[in-house]
């Protein structure tokens, strides 16, 4: 039996559904970025002027080149017994451990509360209670319980990430298309297969969005925590530099902290485009 031909309408739909790669977006994206570039260059110029003409003492605002030189210096020779890389690595490692731990616990819990009303009723109030509390407000308690070591810092950022991730996963699971679940069941899916093959993939966009927001909160929380209690890390570096009035290191540190926050944001956006593009 020969394959069935497509109808005219379908062929039309096909032709319009397979257009040439869209090209007009690149220039428009570039044009959208132009004002931003102008702003950044303008700020740099202003900074250069203000510090160059001695309007502000270099103790308070070192020149851009000075910050850049300092950046290279702390990258190679280091600051406070550690190079910039070691400080960055210390911070990133804390975030990394916390993210892995949060994904491993918050996603299953989110799936559970999304699927089960009783679990949701039991867990929701707890999360809603601690979520609005700024992590730095319960940091003292964590320090009393776990000391000022790595555990406290990882735990703090873990808690900051955990709540938004549970809530995002839970609400994603509740919005899973009911017909898709029925379709999978009538194709023979077991309960576990439903979670694995329908619920999780459907929820992935929500999980990634939740992670992106959580990571923003988590990163700033971490840096703030390092200001208080750490021997290494970007927050610690900035804090000790400020105590010695080494302003160029403070500014260099802030720039690195901002750059990493941007990098985290962009990498999750990349994951969203790559693995959750179907949802947009």
């Amino acid at each position, binding site marked *: *039996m020969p*394959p*069935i*031909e*497509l*109808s*005219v*309408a*379908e062929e039309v*739909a*096909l032709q319009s*559904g*397979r257009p040439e790669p869209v090209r007009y977006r690149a220039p428009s994206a570039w044009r959208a970025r132009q004002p931003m570039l102008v702003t950044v260059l303008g700020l740099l110029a202003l900074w250069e002027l203000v510090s160059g003409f001695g309007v502000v003492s270099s103790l308070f605002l070192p020149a851009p080149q000075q910050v850049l030189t300092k950046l290279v210096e702390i990258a190679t020779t280091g600051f406070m017994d550690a190079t910039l890389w070691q400080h960055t690595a210390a911070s990133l490692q804390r975030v990394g451990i916390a993210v892995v731990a949060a994904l491993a616990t918050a996603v299953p819990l989110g799936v559970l509360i999304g699927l089960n009303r009783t679990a949701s009723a039991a867990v929701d109030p707890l999360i809603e209670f601690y979520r609005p509390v700024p992590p730095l407000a319960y940091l003292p308690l964590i320090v009393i319980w776990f000391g000022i070591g790595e555990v406290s810092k990882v735990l703090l950022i873990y808690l900051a990430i955990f709540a938004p991730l549970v809530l995002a996963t839970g609400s994603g699971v509740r919005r899973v*298309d009911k*017909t*898709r679940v*029925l*379709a*999978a*069941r*009538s*194709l*023979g*899916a*077991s309960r576990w*297969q439903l979670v694995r*093959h*329908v619920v999780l*993939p*459907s929820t*992935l966009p929500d999980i990634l969005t939740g992670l992106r927001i959580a990571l923003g909160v988590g990163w700033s929380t971490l840096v703030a925590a390092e200001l208080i209690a750490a021997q290494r890390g970007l927050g610690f570096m900035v804090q000790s530099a400020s105590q010695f009035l080494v302003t160029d290191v403070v500014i260099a540190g802030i720039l690195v902290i901002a750059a990493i926050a941007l990098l985290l944001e962009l990498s999750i956006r990349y994951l969203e485009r790559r693995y*959750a593009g*179907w*949802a947009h």
Partner: protein
Amino acid sequence: MARLSVDNVSVHYPTPRGLVHALDKVSLEIASGDIVVALGASGCGKSTLLGLMAGFQRPDAGRVTLGGATITGPGADRGVVFQDDALMPWLSAAENVAFGLTLQKVGRSERRERAEALMCRVGLAGFEDHRIGELSGGMRQRLGLARALANRPDFLLMDEPLGALDALTRERIQSLILDIWRDTGTGIFLITHSIEEALFLATELVILSPRPGRIVRRLQPGFARRYAAGESARSIKADPEFIRAREDILNAHFAHDEEIEHAAH
């Protein structure tokens, strides 16, 4: 020979405004080689009836059985095609077709092979690696059909599979359904609110009245068998006998019902 039977079944839905009587003492039977079509206005309980057979819900009274055993849940022996395709947009077209095979842990290369064969069967060869978002409504319905067929089910249950399609695409897929029926002998239950579609596809046609949903008439049109014997769809639908049957159903049951599609496409 497998037999799916609905025996004296009633369903009520509790709502804030009281019980909605969705189905009232409905009985019907589908054996391999049958195409049972349910025709009725919106809200007369057609999807409810299909949900019972698929095992998505249980009746409040009566029994729904498969080969004599009460249906307690969905199963791969009954393939379902939904009105809103219910495909998985994160999977490619071929992966969607092979979804049931994935669940059965069929190996990757065999999955791919069987998905390709099925996609060719429904007229989608070459679209294996397309994303669902890139496909038209008609293509998605073909894909939904291929996905249901991949499990080689004893029964195909279709809830208004062509409701949202344009007339031309609709005719093509009606013929496709009959081709598959002729080749596999799968028992089919299909819902529609097009009189013409019902007459063309059904070996047994049941007409449901709204609230409570009740079977008010049963017919055995012979047009599907004529198609299977080689007559073209166009010639069948232009046959005065077909037109007379169509007008008869329209006048007897849906004379005042604007939703029922009766015009020839």
